[in-house]
């Protein structure tokens, strides 16, 4: 496997400009003759399909929900970054680029990140033109807030529902193209197989989730925008239907999977409270603008709070440990997510945690409410406070919130080159589904930026460059041995899953039973802190669970009907393979960087310790078969522009 990142020549700031100047284009009459499949309708998928449709391509777009507007981008709360420098506080494209590279702990590709920073301003212009109601100040100008890992205010927001508003903007643009007939929408339709003809991605097999029927779609190119794989941990902030299967299917066909061990654990989530729990709810990072994070200084106070004998309000200021402000005076509560998460875990592990389980810290708004008034806080975070109250049944205006880290985002994903093309020609990956821009840790408010950058401003260019020669191919038909085989492979897979319970000996278990068990193993042994031993345990436990799953899972119903249990089962089957790869990647990466923390590799004060000499590379894995260990390829990261330093937020 050859990893050619195709980074254009020339100085960093000119690469994208020169790429666009030299790239191939497709003339308007020919665009109509080219078909593109887009899988996923989140920010990346919807914006890509809308832009490609507007250019004149024929687009088929697929979503597993009943409407494109349900994609999980909708749940992003805090905001979207852009180097507009509207606040005159020293922001610039260069600054956003540097913050992102540093935030990612020097494990992202310079050229991709610079392009991301470069187009960030266009995204805001585009969204405002679509009618996204961003927050404004009294002059009528756009307002900004700060997010972790930055010392400027560059985050644009729409109350606590920025993702919703951006997605509805993209959904509006998509709806317009659907009405114009350039885009065809397939809702409740899940990609089950990639069809590769003569080494090129030529179509997909999709399952109609209402009838269970399999459908064939052919195209000149396939764009995957199916999000991340955080649900491998079962409990995460992802939606219930978010899954890694589409990306994994492509991986099986030869698309390299990069940096799977880079998983982001978000510091501010509502803590776990019971075994029946189905998901974790995020409390936006924006809360750290005004909320202060603390635990008691004395262990006996922490114990008393856990036992319910002491109210946190009664703990004197001097007896509180604002540990982020103490450890990181320069960034304080706004350190990047991986740093804040580990610091919370460190305090809880040391016995200072609060809440019934001892696995929680306080996020306190008392001083902000005193300083700004309840109304201001309510305007900024009202919906988040309401959500917290509904779930926990505690009023956060009166009592400090309790939070704990949870799995949130996956920086790893399908390996892509500068054009967002995977190692399978004709197959592209955008948004969270690819690995490209966030290195080992993503900064807050950058996921929305990347999803929309890929969809609005990158793919419409790079796809044309890659499709220019496809005008000679003619219409691709959904027939031939490759389509037959792909469809048969799906049938076989579904039948074999459904047959397990018939042949099972002894007790059978539900799909969720196995998913919860897998999640616990991954969280415990391959979560916030990893070691050689814990990873070995994870590997053997995952293998044991997987073997048991194939013997004792019970899936009711048929493949030819609406069957959510079957959907969960085939997604979980892929998660088992993916979990093995995450563990393998975490094991080979003998260093700590960003979200990947190996306890063997840390500084004296518990910070990540990178090994730039040996690990400054992207690990791109090649699938070898169900029972065969994958082969790792390296893409060396060359930093020509930025000076590599130790990441320091003190």
């Amino acid at each position, binding site marked *: 496997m050859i990893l050619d990142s195709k980074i254009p020549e020339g100085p960093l700031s000119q690469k994208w400009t020169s790429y666009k100047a030299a790239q191939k284009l497709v003339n308007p009459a020919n665009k109509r003759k080219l078909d593109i499949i887009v899988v996923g309708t989140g920010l990346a998928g919807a914006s890509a399909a809308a832009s490609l449709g507007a250019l004149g391509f024929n687009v088929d777009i697929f979503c597993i929900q*009943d409407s494109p507007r349900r994609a999980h981008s909708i749940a992003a709360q805090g905001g979207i970054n852009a180097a507009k420098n509207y606040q005159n506080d020293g922001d610039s494209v260069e600054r956003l680029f540097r913050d992102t590279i540093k935030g990612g702990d020097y494990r992202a590709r310079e050229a991709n990140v610079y392009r991301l920073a470069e187009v960030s301003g266009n995204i805001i212009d585009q969204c405002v033109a679509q009618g996204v109601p961003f927050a404004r100040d009294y002059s009528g100008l756009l307002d900004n807030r700060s997010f972790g890992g930055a010392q400027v205010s560059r985050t644009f927001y729409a109350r606590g529902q920025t993702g919703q508003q951006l997605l509805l903007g993209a959904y509006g643009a998509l709806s317009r193209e659907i009405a114009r007939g350039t885009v065809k929408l397939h809702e409740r339709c899940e990609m089950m197989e990639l069809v590769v003809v003569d080494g090129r991605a030529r179509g997909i097999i999709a399952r109609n989730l209402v009838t269970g029927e399999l459908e064939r779609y052919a195209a000149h190119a396939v764009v995957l925008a199916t999000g991340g794989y955080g649900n491998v941990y079962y409990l995460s902030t992802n939606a219930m239907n978010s899954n890694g299967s589409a990306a994994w299917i492509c991986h099986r066909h030869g698309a390299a999977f990069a940096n799977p061990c880079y998983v982001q654990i978000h510091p501010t989530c509502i803590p776990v409270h019971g075994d029946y729990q189905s998901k974790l709810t995020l409390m936006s990072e924006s809360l750290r603008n005004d909320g202060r994070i603390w635990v008691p200084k004395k262990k006996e106070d922490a114990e008393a709070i856990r036992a319910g004998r002491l109210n946190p309000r009664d703990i004197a200021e001097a007896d509180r440990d604002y540990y982020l402000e103490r450890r990181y005076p320069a960034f304080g509560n706004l350190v990047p997510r991986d740093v804040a998460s580990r610091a919370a875990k460190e305090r809880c592990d040391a016995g200072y945690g609060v809440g019934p389980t001892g696995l929680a810290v306080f996020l306190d708004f008392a001083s902000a409410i005193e300083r700004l008034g309840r109304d201001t806080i309510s305007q900024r975070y009202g919906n988040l406070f309401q959500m917290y109250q509904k779930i926990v049944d505690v009023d956060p205006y009166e009592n400090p919130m309790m939070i704990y880290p949870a799995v949130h985002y996956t920086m790893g994903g399908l390996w892509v080159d500068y054009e967002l093309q995977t190692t399978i020609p004709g197959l592209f990956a955008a948004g969270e589904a690819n690995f490209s821009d966030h290195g080992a840790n993503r900064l807050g408010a950058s996921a929305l930026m990347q999803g929309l950058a890929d969809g609005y401003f990158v793919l419409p260019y790079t796809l044309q460059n890659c499709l220019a020669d496809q005008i000679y191919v003619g219409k691709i038909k959904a027939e031939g041995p490759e389509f037959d085989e792909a469809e048969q492979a799906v049938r076989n897979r579904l039948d074999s899953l459904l047959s397990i319970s018939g042949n099972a000996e002894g007790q059978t278990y539900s799909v969720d039973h196995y998913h919860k068990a897998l999640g616990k193993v991954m969280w415990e042994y391959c979560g916030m802190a990893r070691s050689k031993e814990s990873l070995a345990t994870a590997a053997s436990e995952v293998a044991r669970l997987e073997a048991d799953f194939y013997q004792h899972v019970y899936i009711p119903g048929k493949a030819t009907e609406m069957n959510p249990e079957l959907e969960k089962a085939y997604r979980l089957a892929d998660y088992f393979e993916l979990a093995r790869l995450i563990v393998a990647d975490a094991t080979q990466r003998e260093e700590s960087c960003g979200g990947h923390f190996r306890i063997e590799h840390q500084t004296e004060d518990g910070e990540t310790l990178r090994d730039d000499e040996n690990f400054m590379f992207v690990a791109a894995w090649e699938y070898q078969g169900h029972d065969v260990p994958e082969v790792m390829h390296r893409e060396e990261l060359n930093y020509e522009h930025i000076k590599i330093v130790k990441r320091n937020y003190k």
Partner: protein
Amino acid sequence: MKFTLHIWRQENATAKGSFQTYEIDNISPDCSFLEMLDQLNEKLVNDRIAHPVCFDNDCREGICGMCGLYINGRPHGNDDGVTTCQLHMRHFNDGDEIWIEPWRAKPFPVIRDLVVNRTAFDKIIQAGGYISATTGGVPDANSILIPKHKADQAMDAAECIGCGACVAACKNASAMLFVGAKVSHLALLPQGKPEAADRVYKMVCKMDELGFGACTNTYACEAECPKQIKRQNIARLNRQWIGSLFGRDRKK
């Protein structure tokens, strides 16, 4: 906590449905309504009693608009300002009987059990519920000044999650609150003005065509909206509609 559940079961769109009764025990008051149904399904699977109950859900944090159950005669149940996924069992009494139905509205046909087809909402949006801003070639974001109170009002309307509770709550199955919210969001912003008349005309025509009823001002929609979208949006929709009869470019 312990509950008796009466759940609407219907195998597919054409099958005849009926209520089935299930008992469930050991439910934590902190558990959400959908997590309670998860536990019921787990039991139905493990004891091989019946096919698990199908219900739509996704984000489980009240924003995607995918979930929506008619619980004891109210869309999204007995707590105000929440979706079904954010309704917690602490709002019920131990031993309660709970009746669970899908949305009942002609434009939202049942697909299976509690799952309904809401593509009608997408079709209304496709009729014109957007601003036509082709990617690229738009002015700088700060070149469009919008008074804060206008932006805030637009945001109030834009918070609609498209769950369909307004339609389910309405005796006429009217979608006026849904359509009014989108029309208001865009009409309140200067960017939305050029297409305003055409937009409202096309959206209302599509709404009628799809079989949604008219508004008779009972405001059940507002009372049941999980995002508390205001009925003033319906008034604005009506004003925009009347304006569109004169202000629209009829050649289009």
